[in-house]
Structure formats: structure tokens, C-alpha cells
């Protein structure tokens, strides 16, 4: 089922175009990462999906209905980029309030406080919370009542590594239960293994929308190969492979995806001389730079 369908959507403020012709679909149970520089149009796109900002042209369907409709809002969970709650309320009061707004029993709010690790602090005032704890309240309200579509804007900012790990566990459980997840983040390394698809926005345009393997193939970025040899033979191996000596016994070289097997064959032909081979495909960070920066320069 298509939880979110974005069809040729534009948004302009006067002459300024912040979103230009974006097409994107998110299926139930799918986790999609939305990447882009500050000002690339991610937040504007999310606000249009939420119905907070009118769409200039094109259409967005949330579970088949228009953004901002009661049904759409009942089925969406949203975590804003920087969220602050009223300091005079306790975490439990704030979360139970959100539960009532969604017609969910307050018990589920209490269970969620345990799930995000806030059960001990639940009855303290939010003004005494750390940034990470506030972010957890934000996450808890976003996943309240198992939404059909979760929109998470910079969800892990302010979280420590352990909390980030727990956060992605919650996202995984949510997706496994059938929620479509669209999350934007700058923390690229943590997205690599934790999302099903990656969409990259640059200057309001969607410049990439595929899974990591496809992105790598399309980008044709060189693969990094690091060869470790016995000290005596490093120079000869480096010369024959056409790589550069990194230190006493390491050689670094790059090749394209389709040359990889041939290069590996060449390396293994050296036999005993080779002690180790390391092959690293282009990281998401390199891909991100390739798609967002290079596209920007091409325009």
C-alpha cells in the first residue's frame, strides 16, 4: 500500500522556488531517508505533507487523502526538527495530552515512556530534562498510536550514540509493524544500514531516489582498494597495479565497479606477496556529495 504519494510537487514563495517537481512514493513498512543540505527543501516538503503549508502545484496524497485532513492527521506521526515542550508540564502529562488528541488511551502513552527509556523521569517537569530526553518525548509522541506514516525531521540530533541505536530500533519495529517512515538526517553514516531507500534533495529538486546499491552503480564512484604486501615487494606491486604507496607496506588504489573483479584477480595473482586486501565501496557520504554537490555545480 502506498502510504505517501508525492506527485510533481512545487512550492514557491513569490519568485523563490523551494521545491521543484518532486516525485516520491513511500510504501507501508518502508524506511526512506531524505537527505539534503540546509535549505534544500526537505522541511518545506515535510510541511506540505503535513498540510501545514499549502502546495503551489502538484499533489500529495497521504493514505489516499489530502494532507491536513482529519484522517491524514490521525494517521501521521511527526517529529519536528527542534521540538520544545512547555517546561511546566511533566513528560507523562505532555504525552497523555497528545494521546487524548489522537483518541488513544493514556495507558499507551505510559507504555511508550518506558519504551523510550523515560519511565523514571516521566513525572518530572520537562524543564528539568536534557536535550536528549526532550527528543525522546518528541519521538514518543511521533510513534504514539502506531501511525501509518511517520515523518521524522532530524530525529537523532542531540542523542548520544546509545540513544541513537535505541532510536533506530524503535524505527525498525515501527516499519516492521507496517508504518511507512520518512526521515531526514545529516548523520549519514548511521543511515546506511538503517534505511531501505535514500532520496536526496538539492535546491528543491529530487536528484536521487534509490537504494544504496543502485545509487552506487548509477554514481559510478571509484571503489577504494587497499593492499598490504610484505615490505620488500611493496614497490613492485604498487608499480604493477598502478597504485600509490601509503606507508611501508600498504598500497592504495581505486577502480570502478565493473573493474573490481579484474583488479582483485590481478592482486591475487601476486600470491604469497599479498598479506591483506581491503575493498571499501563508496560511502553514503561520498554518494551524497556526488549527488547533491555535483548536481548543484551542473546546474
Amino acid at each position: 500500500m502506498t502510504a505517501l504519494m508525492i506527485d510533481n510537487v512545487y512550492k514557491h514563495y513569490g519568485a523563490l522556488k523551494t521545491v521543484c517537481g518532486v516525485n516520491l512514493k513511500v510504501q507501508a513498512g518502508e524506511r526512506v531517508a531524505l537527505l539534503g543540505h540546509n535549505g534544500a527543501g526537505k522541511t518545506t516538503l515535510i510541511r506540505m505533507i503535513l498540510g501545514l503549508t499549502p502546495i503551489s502545484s502538484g499533489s500529495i496524497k497521504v493514505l489516499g487523502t489530502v494532507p491536513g485532513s482529519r484522517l491524514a492527521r490521525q494517521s501521521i506521526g511527526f517529529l519536528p526538527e527542534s521540538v520544545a515542550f512547555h517546561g511546566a508540564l511533566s513528560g507523562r502529562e505532555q504525552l497523555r495530552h497528545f494521546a487524548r488528541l489522537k483518541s488513544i488511551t493514556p495507558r499507551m502513552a505510559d507504555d511508550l515512556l518506558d519504551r523510550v527509556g523515560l519511565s523514571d523521569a516521566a513525572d518530572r517537569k520537562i524543564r528539568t530534562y536534557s536535550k536528549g530526553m526532550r527528543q525522546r518525548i518528541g519521538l514518543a509522541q511521533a510513534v504514539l498510536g502506531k501511525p501509518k506514516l511517520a515523518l521524522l525531521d532530524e530525529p537523532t540530533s542531540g542523542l548520544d550514540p546509545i540513544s541513537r541505536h535505541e532510536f533506530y530500533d524503535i524505527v525498525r519495529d515501527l516499519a516492521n509493524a507496517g508504518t511507512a517512515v520518512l526521515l531526514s538526517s545529516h548523520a549519514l553514516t548511521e543511515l546506511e544500514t538503517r534505511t531501505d531507500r535514500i532520496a536526496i534533495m538539492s535546491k528543491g529538486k529530487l536528484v536521487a531516489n534509490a537504494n544504496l546499491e543502485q545509487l552506487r552503480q548509477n554514481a559510478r564512484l571509484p571503489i577504494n582498494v587497499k593492499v598490504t604486501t610484505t615490505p620488500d615487494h611493496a614497490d613492485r606491486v604498487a608499480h604493477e597495479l598502478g597504485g600509490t604507496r601509503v606507508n611501508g607496506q600498504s598500497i592504495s588504489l581505486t577502480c570502478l565497479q565493473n573493474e573490481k573483479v579484474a583488479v582483485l584477480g590481478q592482486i591475487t595473482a601476486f600470491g604469497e606477496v599479498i598479506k591483506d586486501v581491503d575493498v571499501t565501496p563508496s560511502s553514503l557520504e561520498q554518494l551524497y556529495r556526488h549527488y547533491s554537490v555535483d548536481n548543484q555545480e551542473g546546474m
Partner: protein
Amino acid sequence: MSVFTISALELIIARRNMWVATSVILMGLFTAVLTLAGGAPTGTLSVDPLTIATTSITTLSVYLIPLIGLLLSFDAIAGEAERGTLALNLTYPVSRIEILIGKFLAHLAVLAFAIGVGLGLAALLTIWQYGPADLSFTPLVKLFFTSLALGAAFLGIGYLVSCLVRQTGAASGIVIIIWLVCVVLYDLGLLGALVADDGGSFTKTIFPWLLVANPADAFRLINTPVASVSVLASGIGAAGGASGLAGQLTSLLIWPVITLFLAWLAIRRIEL
């Protein structure tokens, strides 16, 4: 349902922010002092002691109730817009008008509680001093409901400002200016015009309507007992006669409706 959910949360916030305590202490303290002190010099007069108390309290309420109303409301939308919870709330199945009405009901309840405590205290103190016989409680009841209407009008003004500026700091400054204009400068201006006009056509035709157009003045006129005007109040009571009770009531009741309606238009226009 969402309206009451929002009201319930607002009431918790008002209690924690000490707004409830502040309003009740202000109203209680001032009414107690006025009831006790007001009775001292006129103790032997034939005027009902409760009438004296309500007249004194009316004079005070004209200043105090708009102030409490504005203080309760100026942060309502601006604060949420600044924190980002307004956008978040609007992603829930709740409409903007529900948010506005929910907050309004909660703040009105706080006002009603504070006014009720103040006037209840006035009634108790009067009974304690003079005994329950021969006291007419009608002016007190009238004072309660008109105070509430006056407070509602200024709650609406507070929300309107809050929606329009969307910054707590700016909103607090603007509501204080509005308060000064409505309860102090407006009357001073009218007084100046009266003096300049020297009993001419302005005094007889336009002035009564300008006076009653200000909800604070309409409130003052309604609660100043006509029979006691010569004894207690200044000359404005006579001017009130022209617009009549109907005019005063209309002004007092229509202001909350107008300001809340404008606040609703303003909150609808906020693009997040």
C-alpha cells in the same frame, strides 16, 4: 472533545505558572481591603454597605481584570509558535479554532475563579461586619458576570495580539500598551475632549457612545448604581444614561465576540 483536552492542559499550565494563584491573590487582597476600608467612612450612611463595596470593587476591577485577562492570554499562541508546539499540535487531528476555544475556556475558568473568590470574600466580609439582613446581593452577581465579560473581551485581545506578533516578548509589550490605552488614556482623552468642547454638541451626542464603546467604561457604567451616583460616583454616571443599559450590555457582550472572532481570523492566517 479536543477542546476540553486542550482546556485541561491549559489549566495545568496556568496552575503551575502561578497565574491562578496570582489572579486569586490579587483579586482577594484588593477586594478585601476595599470592602473593609470602603465601609469605614460611610458606615453611618443610608446606602447599602454591599453597594459601597461593589462600587469600590468596580473601580478596581476596571484596572485589574483587563490586566489579568491580557496576562493570561498574551503568551497563548506566541509561546507555542516560538516553542514549535503550535505546528506540532496542528499535525494532530485538532483544528485551530479548537485550540483557540480550548485555551479561552481554560483562561475564562481561571478568571471566573479569581473573580468568584474576590467577590465571595467581599460578601463574607460585609456579612461579618453588618449581618446578613437587608443586604442585596444582586449587584454582586451582576458584577461577577460583567467582570467575566470584561475579562473575556481582553482575553480575546490578548489572543489577537499573540497570533499577530507570534513573539512572546513583543506580545507582552503590546498588551501592556493596549491595557494603558483602554483603561487610562482613553478616559483621559475623552475627558480632555469634554473640557475642550465645554458642554457643546460633542458632549451630548458623540461622547456617551464613545464612552460606552470602550468595554472597560461600559463595565464601569453598568456597575455604578444609578441611585447612588450622586452619593458615590463621579459625573460619568449621568453620561451613561444616554446609551442606556442596553447599549452598555451590548458593548460588554459584543467585545468578547469581536475580539475572539478577530483572533480566530488571525490564527487561521498563521502559515507554519
